[in-house]
């Protein structure tokens, strides 16, 4: 069924279709309507879940961590400072290997206060170990939420589904709402092997030593570093799992097929504009103008940022003349985080492209087509002389 709704409602609908059992959230702009919608679903009896109106984001994730440890499908959502307030909990959730799903409506971070969109909030969380999926439109939001639940429980790693605040969270678009019965088939019930169980008592997240230690059965139990190594191995293996899930989803629902990067007119391109999120669709218009002017250029949206899909990035960019990375975030004191990751992925490629970096749109600064066009023309005209420092777009100094 096609409906016209906001991105936040698309996310809430995905959560409902995924039959989340415990939901805890604290309102923060621009995620708030998602939280409101979920409480409406629960109160109205459309979703059989426990909805906990917690007193903070730290507690929202605290509820999810405990509920997930107890064996239920848990969900929360936040933005910006709310996400940062959860930070230690994010580490905890992934270290405890809990399949929590969280939506983040991307927003800039204070100080100074800003409620508008950029992606500094989730990009700043890239090292915690959560899987990060980014959406470009409302269809991807609802689909990604459903896929995220299956991915999370398949690999026992929590997943963030990220979408641009306002640009997606508050805009209305038509999208297909999958049928409940088909979602139920696609997404099996959450049935963990280990959970808080009085009939099989165990202590979860016990202090763990630097070295391995024998248990009561004499078997050697892993130390902290083995547990963390196992997480990293599983994160890297999650790429294959997500590809399988995306393929299964495409089979069942007729959408998908680009789990890691979404490419537009890249096949014959010399130049590829790269970005995360809804900006990639805005860039398509710009690329079309440039194509009309004879520049062989395409655009690639990165859909999964962690684990980083190195192979897909290499496959897409190796042999190109130049990749131009646009970012609504940066690793302060250095460069754009995506830019650095892309360079790192391409480092050992035989025919690696030049890579450029632009920073734009921070704190919701409007991204004008003219700015994008100017930047791309600049990059395409003399790619060799660009240098390694990010250039900022649209600054009014």
């Amino acid at each position, binding site marked *: 069924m096609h409906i016209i709704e906001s991105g936040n409602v698309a996310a809430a609908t995905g959560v409902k279709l995924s039959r989340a059992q415990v939901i805890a959230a604290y309102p923060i702009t621009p995620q708030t309507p998602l939280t409101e919608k979920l409480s409406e679903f629960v109160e109205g009896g459309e979703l059989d879940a426990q909805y906990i109106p917690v007193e903070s984001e730290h507690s929202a994730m605290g509820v999810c961590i405990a509920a997930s440890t107890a064996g239920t499908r848990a969900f929360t959502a936040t933005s910006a400072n709310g996400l940062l307030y959860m930070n230690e909990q994010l580490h905890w959730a992934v270290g405890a*290997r809990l399949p929590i799903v969280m939506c983040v409506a991307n927003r800039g971070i204070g100080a100074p206060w800003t409620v508008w969109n950029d992606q500094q909030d989730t990009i700043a969380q890239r090292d915690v170990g959560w899987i990060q999926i980014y959406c470009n439109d409302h269809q991807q939001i609802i689909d990604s939420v459903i896929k995220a639940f299956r991915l999370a429980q398949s690999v026992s790693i929590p997943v963030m589904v990220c979408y641009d605040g306002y640009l997606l969270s508050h805009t209305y678009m038509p999208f297909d709402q999958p049928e409940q019965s088909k979602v139920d088939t696609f997404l099996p019930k959450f049935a963990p092997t280990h959970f808080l169980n009085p009939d099989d008592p165990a202590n979860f997240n016990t202090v763990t030593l630097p070295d391995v230690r024998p248990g009561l059965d004499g078997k050697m139990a*892993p130390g902290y570093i083995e547990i963390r190594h196992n997480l990293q191995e599983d994160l890297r293996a999650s790429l294959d799992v997500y590809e399988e899930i995306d393929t299964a989803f495409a089979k069942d629902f007729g959408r998908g097929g680009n789990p890691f990067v979404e490419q537009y007119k890249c096949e014959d391109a010399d130049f590829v504009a790269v970005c995360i999120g809804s900006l990639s669709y805005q860039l398509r218009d710009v690329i079309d103008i440039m194509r009309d002017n004879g520049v062989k250029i395409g655009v690639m949206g990165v859909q999964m940022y962690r684990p980083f899909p190195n192979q897909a990035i290499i496959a897409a960019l190796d042999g190109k003349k130049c990749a131009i990375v646009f970012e609504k975030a940066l690793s302060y004191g250095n460069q754009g985080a995506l830019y650095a990751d892309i360079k790192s992925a391409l480092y050992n490629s035989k025919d690696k492209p030049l890579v450029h970096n632009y920073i734009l749109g921070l704190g919701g600064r409007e991204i004008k087509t003219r700015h994008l066009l100017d930047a791309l023309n600049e990059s395409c005209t003399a790619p060799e002389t660009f240098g390694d420092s990010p250039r900022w777009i649209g600054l009014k100094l």
Partner: protein
Amino acid sequence: MAPKEFCKMISRSKPGPGDGGNTGSWRVLRPVIDLKACIPVKMNKEACFNCWLYCPDSVVSKTIPPVINFEYCKGCGICAEECPAGAITMVNEATPIEEDK
């Protein structure tokens, strides 16, 4: 190839004694019960059991006579302090006990 098994390692611990090792080795003083003075022994029925109640480490049994698990008794001396009959003495760990003589 068999499908990859995920989440093979988490910190999940199973209950058991002696996590801290043989905590009896922490002891400097050892509680010794004078069975002639011990109330349940003297009365030959369930009585008193203050030593059992107040032991922080549950190493005293609720039996006649009460028996102390020296593998894990940390030698805090609460049982000696709380025995209403004064039947428990804390002796230097280096002092040989009756059976050892």
